[in-house]
Every structure is written in C-alpha cells, then in structure tokens.
C-alpha cells in the first residue's frame, strides 16, 4: 500500500472541501473494496477522507412514498431493516446474495455503488488494463475472460460491474443523491453507472469531488412478485456469473409492468426497457418470458471463455420471471 494522509471531517461540507483540497484524495467509508485495491496497488490515493462517521446513516421516509437510504447505512442494516424487508424485499435479497456477513456489516450503501470490477487483469498490476491504466490495452479480450461482459462491452474493456445490490436498485428505478461544493444533484440509477466505450477508466458519472449522500427508492417496491436469482460458481460468497432482478406487477395473470435487470453481464446493471415494455398486457407465461429473454440477449457477444453466459442469461431471465410470477 502506498503511504497516504488521513482526515476525518465531521460534516458533509467539510468532507467535500477536504476531498477537493487534497490531490489524489478519495473518500473512505466501509473500505471493503478501496483498501483491497490499495493493498494490490491498483488504487493509490494520496489522501483518504474518512466519512464513516458522518450523519448519513439513517433510513427514512423520503416524502414521496418511498424510502431514503443514507449513503452510510451498512449493507447489513439495509437488508435487515423492517421497512426494506417489507416494502423492498427484492433489495434485501439482492444485498444478502452478495459478499459475507462480515463484509456486509462494514460495506455501506453508497460504497456499494462505487465497487470496482473484479476483472482479474484490473487487479493484476503486472498486466495491461485500460480501466486501470488508460491506453495500456485490454488483457481480458484475448485472455481468460470467463467472468466478463456479454452486453455493452467495447474494444477497450469487457469488465463487468460486480454488485448485487445495484441490480435490484436498477430494477427499482432508484435515484442517487449526490452533493459537492457546486451543490446538490440527483442521478437516475440508469444514468449512474456507464458503459466502458473509449473511457473505461470511468465506472460511473459521479464527479471526483462529489459525495453520495443517499439513495432514494420510489414507492413501487414489487413486494408481491419479485425474484433475485444469482448464478455463481459456489453456493455462497462468490460474485455472480449472471444475476437477474425480476419484478412484476400483475393483475390476475396479466402483466401490467415488468422490470428485468441483469448483473454479471455488463459494465453496469443491464436493463432493456423496450423488451420489458413488450410484456405489458400479456399473460405471465413461460413462452412470453422466453420471448422477452430472447429480446434482451439478442445483441449479446461472447468471448472465448464466456460464451456460456449467453444461454445462461437467457435461461436465468426465464426462471427469474417464472419465479416472480409464481409459475414455479
């Protein structure tokens, strides 16, 4: 780990001031990803601004019928919060599908959004990686790419976003609230993370001097009909090869609204709203779910070692929707 200086501001204005005044400064909260990357010399901040004690640690009503998750609420406290369990069980289940109890006790909701990819080459500083060192090349495209993207990748980067929580937040149409010295801003979840394109070093649209203060959940939580399906190499404590957050609003057997977000397949939680809209008004049947799965996966491109993900994702979508509709 490189040497760095440390500060622990006591309020949000001081924290954004602190991160703006120090060169190469980063916020640290749970630290579960940042410290890991620092130990591997993948990230080398010169200064850490410890925000872990700021008063952003509450879950409250947001005045719009939904809940506001403070950025510093831990993943565990969020997943086990009675109102989250009752109104957003999809979110609870997605969080509990990720990491370990110890990590969930440390990791924060804001930090979860900022997790970096688990691409082996991003972690290995001896290999080229456009995300870690722009312009150096992508080792994964012609390397061992079993865990990599099948949707939305670029010639520069085929990394995936590793979060489970974010897949549920994408399906729920959450909003990310951020602030900086320039003022407050709210970012729709779909616009928070980005595709790699020619600038894979940028995981998201947050500016370096901005801090996440909260995540807003809309009123609609799909508590009746939802599934978080995670497919991984072992039964617990592994990143997703493919995951699906499926949420349905049903009237009888007729679909009013469908949300389908995929994890483990792209640089961001993957949604295809046109495909989702095609389910509206149709009966909840396996055939219709197979059709929508085909639409979502139609543009998928596999690499040498991850071709299997294309069929896997298709089947996972059908199974997740079938579970959400209680067909199986």
């Amino acid at each position, binding site marked *: 780990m490189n040497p760095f200086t440390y500060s622990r501001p*006591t309020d949000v204005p001081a924290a954004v001031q602190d991160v703006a005044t120090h060169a190469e400064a980063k916020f640290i909260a749970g630290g579960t990803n940042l410290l890991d990357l620092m130990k591997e010399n993948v990230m080398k901040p010169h200064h850490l601004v410890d925000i872990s004690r700021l008063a952003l640690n509450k879950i409250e009503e947001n005045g719009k019928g939904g809940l506001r998750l403070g950025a510093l609420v831990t993943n565990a406290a969020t997943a086990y919060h009675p109102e989250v369990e009752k109104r957003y069980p999809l979110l609870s289940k997605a969080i509990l599908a990720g990491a370990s109890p110890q990590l969930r006790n440390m990791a924060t909701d804001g930090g979860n959004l900022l997790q970096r990819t688990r691409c082996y080459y991003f972690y290995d500083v001896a290999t080229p990686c456009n995300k870690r060192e722009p312009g150096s090349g992508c080792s994964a495209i012609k390397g061992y790419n079993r865990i990599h993207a099948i949707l939305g990748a670029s010639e520069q980067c085929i990394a995936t976003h590793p979060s489970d929580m974010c897949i549920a937040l994408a399906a729920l149409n959450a909003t990310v609230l951020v602030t900086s010295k320039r003022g407050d801003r709210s970012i729709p979840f779909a616009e928070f993370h980005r595709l790699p394109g020619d600038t894979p070093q940028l995981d998201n649209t947050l500016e370096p001097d901005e801090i996440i203060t909260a995540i807003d959940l809309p009123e609609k939580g799909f508590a009746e009909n939802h599934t978080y399906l995670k497919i991984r190499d072992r039964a617990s404590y592994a990143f997703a090869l493919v995951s699906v957050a499926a949420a349905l609003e049903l009237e009888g057997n007729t679909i009013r609204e469908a949300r389908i977000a995929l994890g483990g397949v792209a640089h961001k939680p993957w949604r295809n709203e046109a495909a989702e809209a095609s389910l509206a008004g149709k009966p909840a049947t396996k055939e219709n779910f197979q059709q929508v799965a085909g639409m979502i996966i139609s543009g998928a491109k596999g690499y040498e070692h991850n071709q299997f993900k294309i069929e896997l994702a298709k089947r996972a979508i059908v199974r997740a929707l079938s579970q959400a509709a209680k067909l199986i």
Partner: protein
Amino acid sequence: MSNTVQEKTTLAAQPLAEPLPVHLRINGEDHRLQLRPWVSLLDALREYIGYTGTKKGCDHGQCGACTVLVDGVRINACMTLAVMRDGQEITTIEGLANGDKLHPLQAAFVEHDAFQCGYCTPGQICSAVGLIKEGRAKTRDDIRELMSGNICRCGAYTNIVDAIESVTGGTI
C-alpha cells in the same frame, strides 16, 4: 490546505511521517497508540499490541481468519484501518473467555472437534459470536450461509456447524 479546513476537521491531515493518535478499547482494556494511517486494525492488534489470537489469512477480506467484533459487530479486521476505529470497543478471541472458563462457543468447538490445524478457529468463533447476536440463523442451512465468510481449509465445516448449533440449540 486552508486554516478553515483545519478547524472543521477533528483530525486534520498529518504529514506522512507523523503517526496519528489512536485509542482502541480491546477486550475491556484501553490502548493508546501512535499509528500511521495505513496500519490495518489487524496489524495494530497483532504487530503493535501483541494480540496474536486474531489471524492473518488472506489479508483481503476473503477468508475470515481476522474476524473480530467491533462494538459487538463482526467485521474483517484486515479490511479496516485502525485509525478509523478510534474510540471503538474491539473484542478478539482473547476477550471471550471468562478467566479460565471458556466461552460457550470455545467449549463447543473443543467438544465437537470443530477444527484441525486451528488457524481459522479464532475467526470462526468470533464470527459465530456475531452470528448469534445478529439472531438471523434459524436452521443449519442458515448457519452455513451466515458463516460463509469464514473459510476452513482443513474442511471442518460439518463439525463447525455442529458446534455452533449446539450453542444456539437451533433456536436463535
């Protein structure tokens, strides 16, 4: 850095060479240390204070050997900076027994032969203490899932689950 920022922070940025004051309460005893900011809680415990019961396995939050309780909550001591835990209450494996009387989980691990080499055991036991306090494990499968952050390369998992279940009685 401006003076205004200095005033607003409780602990302003220090020059690289300057260690920071860190106060940890470990197993009921106060420890006042001077640590550089990059010292993990795990290294502070083992290298600076001498509590070597907490083990370093992977040092990346993947194996759970370093599990301790901070303010009663189980975390990976390798994935947190000691300076970030200033003022907090840390419980390690050394703090669980009451004098010569083993903690019920320690006794259960002995009773059920829940280890071979024993390297992961302090982390397993501290993790199980946290698990019981969280009150979420109702079945053996729950125990397995909620102990998944603790790896045992000897493969003593069945006996570990037995040991934990014997303490919870299956009704936590």
